[in-house]
């Protein structure tokens, strides 16, 4: 590969990312405006940012702080305080397993261990192929029908290792079909 083409590629990707950042900044500002630029709406706005991008990108804090008349430290503080907000992209699918007491009483720990082993990740991590992020969560409010799981926003009760394997296989197959 010649040096000149290398340089061209780099300048092209830089141009794209500058454009992305500018576009994102305008998106953030629009979301803030939709909430009247009210500082008390920060959490709502962060939910909206995450719904739009899948996570809260690094550059969000500065724009949000400016729009809401907060310090960047205050915005950063809120992003990092709440478990819901991701600061990096997550997998194409998110599997959340409840690890609270009611689910523990019916085998949640074993289910989490099984998921960790089969996905080869720890809770909070994403599989090597980027298909699944595994998360632990404390209570999904399905405590009479545990172990509870939430997969891509859908709640499941009486989850078992076998059922999780089947659902995981389905998720991975639909993901790979979509990629083809």
């Amino acid at each position, binding site marked *: 590969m010649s040096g000149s083409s290398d340089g061209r590629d780099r300048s092209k990707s830089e141009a794209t990312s500058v454009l992305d950042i500018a576009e994102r900044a305008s998106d953030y500002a629009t979301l803030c405006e939709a909430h009247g630029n*009210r*500082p*008390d*709406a*920060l*959490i*709502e706005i*962060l*939910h909206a940012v995450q719904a739009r991008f899948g996570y809260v990108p690094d550059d969000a804090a500065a724009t949000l702080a400016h729009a809401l008349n907060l310090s960047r430290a*205050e915005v950063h*503080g*809120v992003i990092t*305080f*709440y*478990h*819901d*907000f991701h600061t990096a992209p997550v997998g194409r699918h998110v599997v959340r397993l*409840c690890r*609270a*007491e*009611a*689910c*523990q*009483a*019916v085998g949640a720990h074993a289910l989490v261990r099984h998921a960790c082993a089969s996905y080869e990740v720890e809770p909070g991590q994403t599989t090597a192929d980027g298909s699944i992020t595994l998360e632990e*969560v*404390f*209570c*999904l*409010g*399905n*405590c*009479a*029908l*545990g172990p*509870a799981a*939430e997969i891509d*926003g859908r*709640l*499941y*009760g*009486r989850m078992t290792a076998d059922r999780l394997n089947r659902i995981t296989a389905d998720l991975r197959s639909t993901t790979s079909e979509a990629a083809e």
Partner: protein
Amino acid sequence: MSAPITITVAKDAAARSVGADDVAGRIAEEAAARGIDVVLKRTGTRGLLYLEPLVEVVTDAGRIAFGPVSPDDVADLFDAGFPQTGDHPLCLGPTEEIPYLARQTRITFGRCGVIDPTDIAEYRATRGFRGLEAALAKSPAQVVEDVVASGLRGRGGAGFPTGIKWRTVAAADADQKYICCNADEGDSGTFADRILMEGDPLHLIEGMTIAGIAVGADTGYVYIRSEYPDAVATMREAIAACEAAHLLGDDILGSGKSFRLHVRVGAGAYICGEESAMLESLEGKRGVVRAKPPIPAIAGLFGKPTIVNNVLSFAAVPSILADGPEAYEAYGFGKSRGTMPFQLAGNIARGGLVEVAFGITLKDLVEDFGGGTRSGRPVRAVQVGGPLGAYIPADQMGLPKDYETFAEAGFMVGHGGIVVFDDTVDMAEQARFAFEFCEKESCGKCTPCRIGAVRGRETVEKILSGQEVAGNVALIEELCTLMTDASLCAMGGLTPMPVASALKHFPEDFDRVGAREAAE
């Protein structure tokens, strides 16, 4: 042509988690294929979660229940004459006669599983808005005094008299007051708030509106945890329906009074169930606990006088106004008046919601209602009152459930969650988890909680690996005393409850032998 037959299937999140949507879909398909005219109605859940997906057929003689119905059962049900006849092994007879439901006193949860949750006409037809009408016919001060007279105590966990809180806010002189509903139901083993918001959201709206009228607040917020997306959606739908019907907004029911209600969604933080942390979160900030005083009734949301009550406290209010405080006060035991929705969870054969008067024993709840463990093994421990509640050994389940009796025994009723464990539970591991949970969910403001939780977890881990067990148990006991006495809120202050109760009642589980000693 005969009238269509109405069939109800819950759209509650728990029912859907075990296939209620698929069952409803299959019923619609089978009925269409067989040319049977049915109307499928989606309701909240009756709270008989062990029977979900529960299918009910509306008949002249009441509703006939079938459950638990799996999608694969549907064709078989129709082959046996469903929905015209109930001749099938899954038929449970009239829903109201199922002992689990028949033995309950459904004051707060009477409509759950019965009506379309956001249908105002149906809500009205089942005595809805009678409490609001009664409240509008009285002076605000009389409304507050009715709530005081009912003996209602906060259902969120602390059990503080609701009417006294209302009196304080009513007496406060301010240009703006707020009504905040704490629907951050984060305790494991609890789901009553969720069931109510998904199954009878208008009831909560009615209770909050009465509160607003009573204390002179024109704005309210429902703070719902993000783990409850269905409750968020149903509450928003119900609020929109009320706004359209002039039941929220300006000039409610022609009274000239205004009340507006907003839903706010949390972002995954257990501590936001603590009222002052919830207020911080409602203001868009980190959910860090505030030091008290001032109490929220004096300086709450945005520094204004604020009522903060749990979902179930607000939902108890309409019937107090509609039927009079005496009727509500007639239920209960000692100083715990009215009914309490208990929630049977964990390793339990018949999990679900049990609304009964205070005074029932834990044994009744776990054995008679719950049917013992799901695994079929003996019950060993029951955690009552959420992750910060004590572990009660099976042989002490005879205590009547009311705030005072429980407090005397060193336990707490909390939000009514009851989590059952069988004899395979390792109580030292549960103690370790209590600290781990506190470590992960502490807001970090006060040192006993922030640091104590970490040191506590590490010390229990040493015990688990058999290192200086006696010394480390003594250290845990000392740490528990410190956290109880010196923490700012219940998070650090009550984490010692599960730990100390596990140590007290199950000392044998902490009697670990180190690898080195075992080898000798």
